[in-house]
C-alpha cells in the first residue's frame, strides 16, 4: 500500500504547511515542530505515508503546521485516535503530539494503556508544566509550589508526575527525553523513536514563555543523562524514580516487542459464508 517513492530531495520545509502557528513568539513548541520536520526529512518518509495526530492545547495545534496527514482531535484523546489509525493502517508512520495537560491529565488513562498496548507509535509530549491554551493552570507536572494560577493560589502542594517513570511502570519499551532548546538532539531522538518498532514515548521539555517564563532557565539546567541507555527495566525503574527529570537522552530502550506476535490468522472467510451459517438446515 506504499505510495510512490519519495521525491529525492524532500527538505524539512516540505513537511511544513503554510498555516501560521498561533503560538506566542518564543514558545518552545516552534522548535519541536522544526525537529519533527527535520526528522521526517532525514528519514525521507513520503509525506502521504505520515500522519500526525494530536489532542487540544497549544502543543496540539502542531498537525496543521505540518504538510503530512494530520488529525487535530479532542482534548486528551490523541493516543486512541492514533491507535485506531495505526491498527487499521499499520504501514503508515504515525506520530502523536500533545501537551502535558492533554497527555498526563485528561489523557492519562490512554497514556498508560498505550504504553502497555505497544503499537508502533511515536508519542511526543511537549511538557511545559502548564496548561498554556487555557491561560496558565497547573498541570500534573507542575511543581508543587508554583502559584502562578488563581485556580491553585497556594500551589498544588502535590509532587509533579514523573511521566517517564509512569511510562516504564506501564510497560513502554522506548522512553526518551528531549529539550526544545536542543533541536538537534531532539531531532536525533525523534528519529530513534520513529524507527523503534513499538511505542516510543518522547518527553520533550518545551518552555511556555508566557505562563512559565522561568522555564527559560532550562537552557542552563537541562543536561544529558549521565550513563548510557539501559535495556534493563529494574535499572531504569531506579534511575527514573530518582532522576531530576531534566536529563535528556534515550532513558530506556527494551528489545523491540517480539515481531508479529499475532497468531496465525484463522482461515479467511467471506460475508456470504458468514451469512450461510445462519441458514436453518433442510430437514428432508
Amino acid at each position, binding site marked *: *500500500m*506504499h*505510495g*510512490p517513492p519519495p521525491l529525492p530531495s524532500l527538505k524539512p520545509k516540505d513537511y511544513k*504547511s503554510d*498555516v501560521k502557528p498561533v503560538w506566542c513568539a518564543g514558545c518552545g513548541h516552534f522548535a519541536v515542530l522544526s525537529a519533527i520536520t527535520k526528522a521526517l526529512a532525514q528519514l525521507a518518509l*513520503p*509525506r*502521504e*505515508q*505520515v*500522519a500526525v*495526530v494530536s489532542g487540544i492545547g497549544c502543543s496540539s495545534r502542531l*498537525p*496543521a503546521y*505540518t*504538510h*503530512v*496527514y*494530520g*488529525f*487535530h*482531535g*479532542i482534548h*486528551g*484523546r490523541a*493516543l*486512541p*485516535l*492514533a*491507535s*485506531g*489509525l*495505526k*491498527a*487499521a*493502517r499499520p504501514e*503508515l508512520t504515525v506520530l502523536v503530539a500533545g501537551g502535558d495537560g492533554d497527555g498526563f491529565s485528561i489523557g492519562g*488513562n*490512554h497514556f498508560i*494503556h498505550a504504553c502497555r498496548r505497544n503499537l508502533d507509535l511515536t508519542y511526543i509530549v511537549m511538557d511545559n508544566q502548564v496548561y498554556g491554551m487555557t491561560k496558565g493552570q497547573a498541570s500534573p507536572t507542575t511543581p508543587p509550589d508554583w502559584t502562578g494560577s488563581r485556580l491553585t493560589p497556594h500551589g498544588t502542594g502535590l509532587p509533579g508526575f514523573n511521566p517517564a517513570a509512569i511510562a516504564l511502570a506501564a510497560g513502554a519499551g522506548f522512553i526518551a527525553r528531549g529539550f526544545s532548546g536542543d533541536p538537534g538532539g531532539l531531532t536525533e531522538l525523534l528519529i530513534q523513536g520513529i524507527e523503534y518498532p513499538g511505542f516510543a514515548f518522547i518527553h520533550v521539555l518545551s518552555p511556555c514563555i508566557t505562563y512559565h517564563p522561568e522555564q527559560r532557565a532550562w537552557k542552563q539546567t537541562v543536561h544529558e543523562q549521565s550513563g548510557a541507555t539501559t535495556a534493563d527495566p529494574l535499572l531504569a525503574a531506579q534511575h527514573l524514580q530518582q532522576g531530576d527529570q531534566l536529563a535528556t537522552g534515550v532513558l530506556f530502550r527494551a528489545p523491540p516487542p517480539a515481531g508479529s506476535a499475532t497468531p496465525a*490468522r*484463522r*482461515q*479467511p*472467510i*467471506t*460475508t456470504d459464508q*458468514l*451469512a450461510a451459517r*445462519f*441458514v*436453518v*438446515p433442510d*430437514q*428432508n
Partner: protein
Amino acid sequence: MKIEKQPVTLPPERSAGRRRESPVDRKTDLTATRSLSVSIIGSGGTGVVTCGKILLESIARMGLYALLARSSGPQIRGGESAIMLRLAEQPVENLDDRFDLLLALDWLHVDRFADELPVGADTIILHDSDRGDIPPCFDGATQRRIATPLTRLAEATENGRANMVGLGLLGQLLGIPLETLCTAACDLLKPKGETIVGAGLRCIEQGYAAAPPAPRPLPLSAPVVPPKRWNISGNEACGLGALQGGIRFVAAYPITPASELLEWLAPNLERLGGELVQAEDELASVNMIIGASFGGIPALTATSGPGLSLMMEGLGLAVASETPIVVSNVMRGGPSTGIPTKSEQSDLNLALYGLHGDAPHLVLAALSIRDSVFTTEWAVKLAETLQTVAIVLTDQFLGQARAVIDPPRAPGLKGSRKRAVDRTHYQRYTLTDDAVSPMAIPGDAGCMFTADGLEHDQRGTPSATAADHQQQLDKRRDKLTGFDYGDDWAEIGGAGAICLITWGSASGAVREAAERLTRSGHPTRSVALRLLSPIPEAAFRAAIADASHLLVVEQNHGGQFYDHLNARKLLPPGAGSLARPGPLPLRPGEIVNRVMQGA
C-alpha cells in the same frame, strides 16, 4: 422427514367467548398468524436455556417461525432463568399477551419472573412433581396443569437431566416430531461430548413418551416445503449487517447487553482481514474508530447507554471533522446503571440530541432481529456515503433474543465513500452540490490535510469567522437533509384511519396490534420508523395522511419519540402517546387496549 400440513382443530375454550367490542380479551386472533407461546423456567443450573435453544432449532427445522427471548435473575451466574418462546406459522418477532404453556423445572425465585410471565386461565402449566407445587403467583392458571415426575424420570438414565425430560414432554405437546427434536438436540449438545448427548436423547425420548394426551395446545402446521429461513440472534444480526456494510475495524469496551455483539464480531472480523481492539474505555473506543476511519477503513463501535454517554464528545469530533463512523447502541433500562440486563427504548434522547453544538448526524433503529441486518448494513453505507456519524439503536430484547426468520434483505445503496481525485488544489471541506466533499485518506499523495474539530474553512484551516461557521454548519446539515433515503426510512403496514406510529423493537407488537384491530373491524395502519433522524418529513406526512386517530408507541417513560416527532412538528395536535417504560416488553394487547379506550 416430511411434515404434512395438518388440519387445524380449535380447542373449545379458544373459539368460544369472542367479543367483537373488546379485541384485547382475545389472546390470539385465530384468523391471523397462529402462534403458541411457551415459557420454561428454572433455577440456576437446571438447563432452561439449553432447552430453549433446542426447541427453537427444532421448530426452525419443522418449517415454522419462532422467537426465543430470555430473562435471568440478578445473580452474575447460575441464577434462575426463564426462556420465552413464541412459535408461529408466519414470521413473528414479538411476544404475545399471555403464555399458552409454561414448563417449570422448579419454582425457586419464580416470583422474580411473575410479571414477565403473564398466564391466563387457559395456560397449561407443566411442572416437575418432584419439585413442589404451583406457587401462589400462578394461581390464575391452575385449571390446566400437568404434573410429571421429571426428576425421577431423569434419574432412570445415567447422567439424565430433568430439563431434557421436560423438553421431550414439551416437544410432544407442541407436535414436534421426535426425530426433529433429537437431531436438533444432537447438534446443539455435541460440544458437551457423547455421554451427554446420549443421556440427553434418552431423556427426551422418555419425556416424549410421558406426555399426557390432554390438555394440549392447538397444533401449528408447517408448510410442506418450507422456505429458506435463518436462526439468528439480534446481536448476531447487527454484527452481520455491519460486516456486510463493510466494517473492518471495531474498537469497543465490554458492556451488557452489547458484549455478545462484540464477541461475535471479534473472531469473524479477523477472518475477514479486519480487527477488533478491546479498548481501555469508551472514550478510547470511539476515538479509535475515528482514527481507523480517517485511515479509510469503515469502523464501528458497540455499546449501551452508559458507554454511549461517554462517547458523545467523540461523536461530535466525527461530525465536525466529517469522519464516518457507526455506533451500535444496544439499549437497556435507564437512567444511569439502571437495569442493565433488561430492555428499554430510553436512549433515544441521548442518541438524537446528546451532542454539544449543532451536530447533525444519523440515528437509526432496527425494527426486529431480522431487520438488524438490514438497518446496520444501511447505517454503515449511509455513514460512509454522507461522511457522518450513524447511531443504530437496538435493545436488550432484540439483541439477546433469537428468532427464526426469513432471510434478511439488503439495502440497495452502494454506500462507498466519495474519494478525493483532485490532487492539485485539494480542499477537504469543499462545498459541492450534495454538500459531501471528496475525502482523501493517508496514502493519497498530494492531498495531505488536517482533519479538525475546530471550525474551519473549506480547506480545513481553523477559522472563527461567522461566514465559515455558517457555511460549514449549513453543509453538515444539508448533506443529511438533502439526501434521498428512498422508502427504507420506515416500514408501513395496513391501512385505516387509526395510525400507530412506532420505532425500533416496539414495531413487532405494534404491527400485531394493528392487525388485531383491523381484523376486529377497526382498520389500522402502522408506521414503524427505521430512520429516526433526519426524518424524511414529506414521506412521513404522506404515511400518516388522513389518519383520524394517531398513537405513538414506545417503550420508555418520557415519550421520547413522541416528543421528537412534535419537535419536528410532524404530528397533528390530537396525536396520543403510549409510552411505557421497561423492563416488560410491550405486548400487542396493551396497545389494542389503549386504542380502544381512546377510540
